[in-house]
């Protein structure tokens, strides 16, 4: 048999990489706030943060389709600003991926920030580090394990998920046809050989990426406590 088309794999990796990067950036202030706030809103926000998870992906996709469509206020505003629609575009996939992987980024980070505690931040402040400085140079490195977990979970989940992606993306080759959809197609059309091939490639590839990440992490461990 022919080697399968690897375009969808690259697309998936790009999607997962971009979504992960944005997620880590977005989740950081939210997780930070959750870790340190004493507000009454904490528990509700924590609960809400986990909600994207409980929706079946396709259904979440459906609702995203509704909320991101050019007919909706949000979608219309996006069209207004950028000239193109969010749905059926790579950008739309990124947005959708961020929504459904958010809990995977927020929760481990929150746990890690809580484990770091206030002591090291007070120490940093006493060494003239402002809050942002202290965050970047003390809290974040000490929460490295949390970042690793958040990155791995959100990357892998974005790579694997396809319910949402399918719905919001519309399976356009080169734009929104990611590898999970391609494998799914093969399975559904009984092209098991191709499905196996793509699955193996995906698995091996993912394994190697993860292995590299963990191996690097092991060589530069951050032990806290």
């Amino acid at each position, binding site marked *: 048999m022919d080697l399968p088309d690897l375009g969808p794999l690259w697309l998936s990796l790009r999607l997962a990489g971009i979504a992960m990067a944005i997620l880590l950036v977005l989740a950081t202030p939210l997780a930070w706030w959750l870790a340190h706030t004493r507000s009454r809103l904490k528990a509700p926000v924590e609960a809400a943060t986990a909600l994207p998870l409980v929706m079946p992906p396709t259904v979440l996709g459906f609702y995203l389709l509704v909320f991101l*469509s050019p007919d909706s206020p949000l979608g219309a505003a996006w069209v207004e600003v950028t000239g193109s*629609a969010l749905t059926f575009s790579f950008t739309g996939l990124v947005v959708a991926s961020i929504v459904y992987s958010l809990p995977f980024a927020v929760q481990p980070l929150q746990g890690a920030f809580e484990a770091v505690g206030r002591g090291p931040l007070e120490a940093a402040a006493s060494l003239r580090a402002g809050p942002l400085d202290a965050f970047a140079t003390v809290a974040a490195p000490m929460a490295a394990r949390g970042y690793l977990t958040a990155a791995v979970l959100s990357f892998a989940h974005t790579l694997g998920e396809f319910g949402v992606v399918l719905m919001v993306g519309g*399976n356009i080759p080169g734009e929104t046809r990611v590898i999970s959809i391609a494998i799914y197609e093969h399975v559904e*059309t009984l092209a098991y050989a191709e499905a196996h091939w793509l699955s193996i490639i995906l698995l091996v590839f993912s394994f190697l990426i993860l292995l590299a990440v963990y191996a690097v992490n092991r060589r530069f461990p951050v032990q806290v406590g």
Partner: protein
Amino acid sequence: AEALVAVSANFAEVARTLKPQFEAATDHELTLTVGATGTLYAQVRKGAPYDVLLAADQKRPAKLEAAGEIVPGSRFTYAVGRLSLWSPEPERIGDAPLDALTADDVEHLAIANPKLAPYGRAAKRTLKHFGLWKRLSEKIVMGQNVGQTFSMVATGNAQLGLVATSYALNAEKHQPASRWDVPASAHAPIRQDAVRLRHGADNPAAGAFLSYLRSKDARTIIRRFGYRTGGNS
């Protein structure tokens, strides 16, 4: 007795309508389980306890037959699907449907994935038939099955869709829309086969339901949902 009937998603609504009729007419009961035909097929091959399969195509029932997974001779076409060009905008599809297809403000045309769904294959054929496949391929977005495809249009993300007529009719009960039924000549008929699976070989309810499907009452209901039925395609 009670039969477990695996129904491809496009036919779920019809099956739900048929179920009480059948149960009233016999002393059997049905349990419906809905899924994509490919999923249902894979499950049957791995021992799913389904008695009857109502597929969305002929290919998979035939494969099951070849694999000896069905009661020999039980395969027949219970419905022939039809395709419609559909839009939730009442004005969009007027008297010149091909012009509507090529209108500049159509950014996306939704079809089912031709590789997966018979309705998708039919949609592709139709576009080719009218010589629009190449021209529109940039605008095409694909759902993995008829349901998803329809959602894309219904939510306004795609302006037009080539969808199962059954879905269009169903939706029009709730919202205004415009529709053009694609002539049968534009694509090969979408024959949907039913089979009695080996698991249901000894289940009288399975046999009874398959017989019922061929009944005049059932065929009337099936046609009401936008399908053609056996022979009169």
